[in-house]
């Protein structure tokens, strides 16, 4: 196995991690600030991808498609918050899970009703398609590099927003003590809608970015949602930094595990059995990682003591 292949796989792991971060950031914000378990986060990811595919189909512009994905997911998020989620903050987690699960079904069937059962077409724009040669002779798709860059930029923007702006202060304060900031005169319901729409917009952006290299279809959000939950549990619920570290850890573990475990087993057994056993074990790897992290730090890497 050459160094180039290993480096390429590390890049792949990074890119996957960055994409997971976009999903997990919104999820962890919503859980941290509002104490809400939002299973419908994957549906917002799907909304972003479908909006992007539709707009790219009409206008042919990928930039417009990305903007549409942000706007559509944020609008869907705000709408859902005002009409449904707002009634759930005081309920227990089981009610939240039930209601947001219902939202998944409504979004899925609604999307099917609008766009049909067959996958939509969304492609990488010409100026980002094809591979580039990196130093050291690594051939790597330009689009995936762009995802890494966009993801890191969004991450930096988010840190700036949380750490340096007035809204960020309110979000952090809301996380620490909801009643108190309401008593201090902050319009808490507006803040909640804003946070929810922000999380939704990030999920929608992830859906659009990934939709260009995957299939845009109903139900695309649910597998990612499970991984995003793993990420925020590893990172510590409510922590953006935790979401970033957790996402990169999960991305790298999943990618590198899937590549190297079968090769490791191939040293010990015949190739077909090694491929099959290695693939099975590799798909468990992130859950083993999660269990190990929870064993050492029960509230996640950057979680509070709550």
């Amino acid at each position, binding site marked *: 196995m050459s160094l180039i292949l290993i480096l390429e796989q590390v890049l792949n792991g990074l890119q996957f991690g960055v994409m997971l971060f976009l999903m997990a950031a919104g999820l962890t914000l919503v859980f941290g600030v509002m104490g809400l378990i939002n299973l419908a986060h994957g549906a917002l990811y799907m909304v972003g991808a479908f909006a992007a595919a539709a707009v790219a189909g009409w206008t042919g512009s990928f930039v417009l498609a990305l903007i549409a994905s942000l706007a559509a997911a944020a609008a869907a998020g705000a709408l859902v918050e005002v009409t449904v989620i707002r009634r759930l903050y005081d309920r227990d987690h089981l009610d939240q899970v039930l209601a947001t699960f219902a939202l998944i079904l409504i979004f899925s069937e609604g999307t099917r009703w609008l766009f049909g*059962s067959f996958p939509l077409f969304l*492609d990488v724009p010409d100026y980002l398609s094809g591979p580039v040669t990196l130093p050291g002779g690594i051939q790597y798709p330009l689009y995936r590099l762009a995802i890494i860059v966009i993801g890191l930029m969004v991450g930096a923007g988010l840190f700036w927003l949380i750490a340096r702006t007035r809204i960020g202060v309110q979000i952090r304060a809301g996380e620490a003590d909801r009643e108190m900031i309401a008593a201090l005169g902050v319009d808490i319901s507006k803040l909640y809608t804003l946070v929810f729409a922000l999380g939704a917009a990030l999920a929608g952006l992830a859906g659009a970015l990934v939709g260009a290299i995957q*299939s845009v279809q109903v139900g*695309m959000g649910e597998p990612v949602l499970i991984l995003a939950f793993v990420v925020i549990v590893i990172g510590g619920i409510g922590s953006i930094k935790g979401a970033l570290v957790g996402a990169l850890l999960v991305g790298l573990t999943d990618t590198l595990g899937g590549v190297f475990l079968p090769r490791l087993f191939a040293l010990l057994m015949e190739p*077909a059995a090694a491929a099959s056993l290695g693939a099975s074990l590799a798909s468990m790897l992130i859950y083993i990682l999660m269990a190990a992290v929870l064993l050492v730090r029960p509230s996640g890497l950057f979680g509070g003591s709550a």
Partner: protein
Amino acid sequence: MKILKSLAVATAVSTLALAAQAETKIGMITTLSGGGAGLGVDVRDGFMLAIEAAGRDDVEVVIEDDQRKPESAVQIADRMIQSEKVDIMTGIIWSNLAMAVVPAATAQDVFYLSPNAGPSALAGKRCHKNYFNVAWQNDNLHEAAGAYANDAGLKNSFILAPNYPAGKDALTGYKRMYGGELAGEIYTKLGQTDYAAEIAQIRASGADSVYFFLPGGMGISFLKQYADSGVDLPVVGPAFSFDQGILQAVGAAALGIKNTSQWNKDIDNAANVAFVADFQAKYGRLPSLYASQGFDTANLILSALDKADVKDQDAFRAALEAADFDSVRGDFKFGNNHHPVQNIYVREVIQEGDVFTNKIIATGLTDHADAYASECNM
């Protein structure tokens, strides 16, 4: 969920305008929601096209959505068999669901006709007199692809498939016919959508070609990422990643790729020409191989009902075995294990106007039976 299901039943019931005392009841369990819904919708639409064209008021079809979940498929099957008393069942797309439903159904004296899934376990030792597969045994299309790879002079294939029963059947089938070396063999996760790691391994492997079995959305993801990666080795696959439902989503990335199928819209016989035209007129899209399989399944059932009453199981079974219907595939007959013996073609992805579709370029395997037939003692 309950509401959705009863809605599905209600629509099925209302579209049929069935007679109160239908004599034959057919239960269809297929995937109509979630990621795999395109396949189930095609099977259902093809099936209902044939049933409605027959215009019989003594046949009732009950359609339910399994959501691609084995546990809900089993529940629906139990209800259909025990309270709705269906005579014939059909519809399941996925092999893992078929394995959960079919053995129990056939053991309770219900006929099961598979319009898609053909797991090897049900073709060999566990074959059953009441189980018929109208599509193919899972290995078949992959065997044809292996044979094609030999003809095309490919000598060092990199092969990959998802880690589930049909994925294993796929690579087994390919290797059964393919005579060259393997540059690599990977099982991916079922439902995986990112193939960057696999593509990097393909690039580093020194392969001269890639064979992959990734049905539905998995195939779309793989093809788009493969086209974008700069790896330009020839790709071969079974029809499942190049069916009419997903080609538009893949776009130009699929052009020129060779894939194997038992059916295509350009097979020249009267039944097929009429099927393609009627399907397009009714649903406003081109049929896929799944639609053709649903259509053939319905016509097989109708042909057997013309000869025998479904309550007379032995006579009805004999009528099914005769397969006396005009298949859109042309010649169609069953082997001793009730799986098709049929031609499998090599197709190429082409563009007609702004629609991506397939055309047949060669016959891969002629009158091909599956490898498990000899293990079946009925």
